[in-house]
């Protein structure tokens, strides 16, 4: 069975470490915050200028001056700090964020990522995504393995305008956990009940299949 959005988030949460500063993108990445292990402290960075993002406010806590990068009303966690956009991106571009999780339209075997523009269809802008992928060493991309029409999103070469070049090393999809190295996807884990053959069939880029590919455990 392909993973649900929540299960993708749960698998990514296994990559968290105690004391990590983490930037979570919009969509599935945001859900990772729900699966931080109880015995662990992580601090969430929101690129509009908040380190230590807390939960959504209760109705009487709602404050127009307190939002996250998705423009949602939020609270500040205990020990949070608030700062300017330049300071926020100094953290990001200076490589101070320990883990970045973001979505994508396409990733290719060279570690290129396309996530911000579909020519002729979608022109919303890159927001902070180009800074995040250029500045972070530890990035996890999460996405569905293939489109609704069955077309692979894990390619030999991205077809859409890039967000960053050669910067992605880890991808979690609804079917698999893969690393990217030396011009290939390396299949490290598969979703429970999903065959290596299915993953191979839905991966357009070069896929290296080790002798043993364990199922993910939750």
């Amino acid at each position, binding site marked *: 069975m392909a993973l649900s959005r929540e299960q993708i988030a749960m698998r990514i949460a296994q990559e968290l470490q105690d004391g990590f500063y983490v930037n979570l993108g919009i969509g599935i990445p945001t859900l990772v915050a729900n699966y931080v292990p109880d015995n662990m402290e992580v601090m969430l960075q*929101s*690129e*509009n*200028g*908040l380190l230590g993002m807390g*939960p*959504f*406010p*209760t*109705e*009487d806590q*709602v*404050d*127009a*001056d*307190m*939002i*996250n*990068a*998705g*423009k*949602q*009303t*939020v609270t*500040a966690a205990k020990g949070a700090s*608030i*700062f*300017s*956009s*330049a300071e*926020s*991106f100094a953290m*990001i*571009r200076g490589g101070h964020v320990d883990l970045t999780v973001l979505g994508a339209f396409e990733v290719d075997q060279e570690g*290129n990522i396309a996530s911000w*523009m579909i020519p002729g269809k979608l*022109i*919303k*802008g*890159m*927001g*902070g*995504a*180009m*800074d995040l992928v*250029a*500045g972070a060493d530890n990035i996890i991309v999460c996405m569905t393995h293939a489109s609704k029409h069955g077309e692979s999103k894990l390619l030999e070469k991205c077809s859409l*305008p*890039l*967000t*960053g*070049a*050669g910067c992605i090393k880890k991808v979690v999809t609804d079917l698999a956990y893969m690393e990217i190295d030396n011009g290939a996807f390396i299949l490290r884990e598969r979703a429970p009940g999903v065959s290596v053959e299915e993953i191979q069939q839905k991966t357009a880029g070069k896929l290296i299949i080790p002798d043993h590919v364990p199922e993910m455990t939750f």
Partner: protein
Amino acid sequence: MAGFNKVVNSYEEALAGMTDGMTIIAGGFGLCGIPENLINQIKTLGVKDLTIVSNNCGVDGFGLGVLLEDKQVKKMVSSYVGENAMFEAQLLGGELEVELTPQGTLAEKMRAGGAGIPAFYTATGYGTPVAEGKEVREFDGRKYILEESITGDFAIIKGWKADRYGNVIYRHTAQNFNPMAATAGKITVVEVEEIVEPGELEPSQIHTPGIYVDRLILGTFEKRIEQKTVREG
């Protein structure tokens, strides 16, 4: 003698001297911390062919979105313009030019502009359409592109409290782009919720020192929320 007193008493006075074709840098992220009354005053003035530098372009009918209604904007320099139907229509119709700029690069362009730095190298955008036509240079084995800084004829800023000398404090995440934008205007205009006497604000807590501020005005604000999200109390 006005001395260091930056306070003006009307929005007409606040934006006096703004003319067609100017570049205006605006603080704000989404609808948070935007100079909403100064934006409305630009609409009232009816100046056209403006270049607006702002992370976003408001929404239809509020924030910078109101300047699209009478086609006052020639060009937007932004990182994300997703929430605005009129924006998209004018862009696709060729009436509006947009220079999409990575968010961190945009913040740094303002910061550098205000600090007298004409350009800087960054890894952000290398190998992407953003890098087209820009100088590439390698440092320590990594490739960087040269990005030029931005200054504006006006900077329009939303603060929380200020003293009459123009020392400004921002509230919560309404800070965002405001401090950098404030440094990058030839004329920097700040609107705030409260004006106090010099000496009442703690000097070490000032976000924008008064040296950057030319005009200061007291406003009242709607502070519209773009996406209200709550949990059960």
